[in-house]
């Protein structure tokens, strides 16, 4: 029964936590909305921007942002000179409620700006410089060009709005026009094709998952010899490896590590006593495996990935009971064993198994002290099989994965 309760609790707990979390997030939204209004009245736009940014975080918890939230966010972005964010927030405000103020403002922006995607191939090593044929007069337009130049210098790319006009990206001329299509400019090394340009850094780095393990050792399907009884319990699984993005959004994760069921059931002393000297000490069911796995990873978003792939594991297990009543030392379980059906006799065995692993990773933020790494949680599960038993398991882990 206890074996059944643990997974049920594991399933129910997140639902309850989610409900409580949503209520808390809605309360936080109310507080932030009030804070935004007060800050806006004082023209404290950096504060408004901060409140809006926090709203975007709790929006992921299911909080629905209002027209006023987005409008104040747009006003804050305007005060901070970020026209791209102004535009995006106005579009969100309009999706909630279309008002003359918002539609007029959007029309203003669309009457002066258009979207661009400026990038450089990762192999491009030349200077990245954005120049404008004629610097506009308007301060907000100059600020956007300055921000684009800064982004290009820092990240090698800029995606957002630019005022209408003629530009050059490291000598490549392009025009931003009213009503024009999205302008894409990619700098590539000499002789390389723009079509095959690789403009986004690939994930390439350490992948680790360390956390609590719930594992089961199934009953043996071999019925001609004494077999250790199946068991379940908590333990630790720790995997360390490398993840490499091979093509967007696909990657490959290779890991090796320890998979230990450490806290299984302990043998029944009374039953042991009945066996006399055969098994004088109670035995705790355990399993220790060393595994390697290779998984395909898919990143639907920069924060979320799904992995699935094969795994192999070797190790040992011991159980506090045996079945089949085998009293012959030729039994496959190299063991100290007792009477048929005993809950007292321990059995030890070596395991060589193959199986599969599947998991989800969600990264909450950057890993402190590590470049291009994201920290979060992973939920993993899988099963091993050694031709005699199935070894299913599930894990909740602290995890780090590479980011771009």
């Amino acid at each position: 029964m206890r074996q059944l309760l643990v997974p049920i609790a594991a399933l129910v707990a997140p639902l309850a936590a989610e409900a409580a979390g949503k209520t808390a997030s809605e309360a936080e939204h109310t507080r932030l909305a009030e804070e935004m209004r007060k800050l806006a009245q004082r023209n404290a736009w950096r504060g408004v921007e901060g409140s809006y940014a926090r709203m975007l975080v709790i929006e992921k918890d299911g909080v629905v942002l209002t027209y006023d939230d987005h409008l104040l966010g747009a006003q804050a972005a305007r005060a901070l000179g970020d026209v791209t964010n102004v535009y995006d927030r106005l579009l969100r405000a309009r999706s909630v409620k279309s008002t003359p103020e918002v539609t007029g403002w959007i029309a203003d922006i669309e009457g002066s700006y258009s979207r661009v995607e400026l990038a450089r191939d990762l192999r491009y090593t030349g200077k990245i410089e954005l120049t404008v044929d004629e610097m506009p007069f308007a301060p907000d337009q100059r600020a956007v060009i300055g921000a684009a130049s800064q982004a290009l210098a820092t990240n090698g790319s800029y995606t957002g709005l630019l005022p209408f006009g003629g530009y050059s990206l490291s000598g490549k001329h392009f025009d931003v026009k009213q009503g024009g299509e999205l302008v894409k400019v990619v700098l590539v090394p000499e002789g390389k094709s723009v079509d095959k340009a690789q403009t986004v850094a690939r994930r390439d780095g350490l992948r680790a998952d360390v956390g609590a393990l719930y594992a089961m050792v199934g009953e043996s399907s071999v019925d001609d010899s004494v077999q250790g009884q199946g068991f379940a319990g908590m333990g630790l699984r720790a995997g360390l490896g490398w993840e490499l993005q091979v093509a967007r959004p696909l990657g490959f994760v290779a890991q090796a590590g320890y998979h230990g069921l450490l806290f299984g059931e302990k043998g029944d002393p009374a039953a042991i006593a009945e066996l006399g000297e055969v098994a004088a000490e109670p035995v705790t069911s355990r399993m220790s495996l060393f595994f390697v796995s290779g998984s395909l990873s898919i990143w639907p978003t920069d924060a979320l990935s799904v992995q699935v792939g094969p795994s192999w594991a070797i190790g040992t297990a011991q159980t506090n009971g045996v079945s089949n009543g085998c009293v012959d030392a030729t039994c496959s379980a190299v063991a100290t064993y007792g009477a048929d059906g005993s809950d007292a006799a321990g059995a030890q065995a070596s395991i060589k198994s193959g199986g599969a692993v599947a998991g989800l990773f969600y990264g909450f933020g950057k890993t402190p002290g590590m470049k291009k790494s994201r920290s979060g949680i992973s939920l993993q599960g899988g099963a091993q099989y050694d031709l005699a038993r199935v070894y299913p398991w599930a894990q909740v882990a602290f995890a780090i994965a590479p980011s771009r």
Partner: protein
Amino acid sequence: MNTISSRLMTALTLWAGLGAVASAAEVNITAKGHAFNPVWSPDGQWLAFELNNYQGSIELYVVKVQGGTPMGSPTKMVVPGASSSFSTAASVAAAPAWHPKNQLIFEGSAAGGNSRLYFWAPGGQTASELLSATQAKDDLTWPSISPDGKMVAFVGSSTGQGDVYFWDRNTNAVTQAFTSPFSEMAPRYAPTSTELAYSRKNQGGEDLFVWSAGANTPRIGGNGDQSRPVWSGTSVVFYTNERGDDRWDVAVSKGAGDKQILAKDIRLPQRAAPAISPNGQWVAYGVTTPEKADAIFLTKVDGSATVEINTSFVAAGEPSLVNAGGRTWLAFTALPSNSADWRGLHIIDVTDKVK
């Protein structure tokens, strides 16, 4: 006509429209205050003007104009922070100057703050500050945009007295034009965008100078103030009160030391330089003579002709001229009657008068 010099009286004088009252379109101003300093956008589609109720605040409005007819109500320019509830000090938005591409720069001060330069584009939401305090600190006033649209000259107060600065649109750099122990004011670009006329305060009076290629050349001095220069080709048109503090004339200087009075006892505008027609041939002004206070005069800069534009108003002045749609439009402000509270803003077609 004792307000016009005897020299001009002997010139070819056209009293076109004498006795006839030109019909004017009036800008619908609902706020209380005197309309001052109308300034046309280069394309003649927008008219900026100040509204001053003499209670500390000066507001700046812009109205769209089509075919000489104001379209709708004027839009008030809002300086960011001017509506702060944390200060009761008055705000100022004034001294509009148009960029060749019809964008507006003006002086503005949020409640109790420094006077700064602001930018606004027609149809835009609010004005934004043109230069940051890092670029140019303290008070910034007297903006003048070069005709090629690449530079803005203005007066900055960071040294404690007014100095002329340049802002380069392409480089976003602010540089001091020159250093001097005097206060400089009212810089104004020449049509070439390479010369600058300005006034310098010295020993209580203002004299005119021209900056060109890094050198400053005295243009006109004399008694009283020679102030608010504006270019007409290579000539400089300006106001002078050399006959007494309250007696202002409009004059032209064709070179260093040269001066010709074009009209006497003109009604000195609150802030504006002499209003020059787009072709540079005419200067417009109102006069203080009571019997001619309903008229706006247009005098050729070469002094060869003067035209009187009669209106049905009182104390007409603050003229501004523009060409749009093949017509020449005159904007001016005037009291509706002697007992009226506030000066209104009017637009007249003067095409036939300035041929």
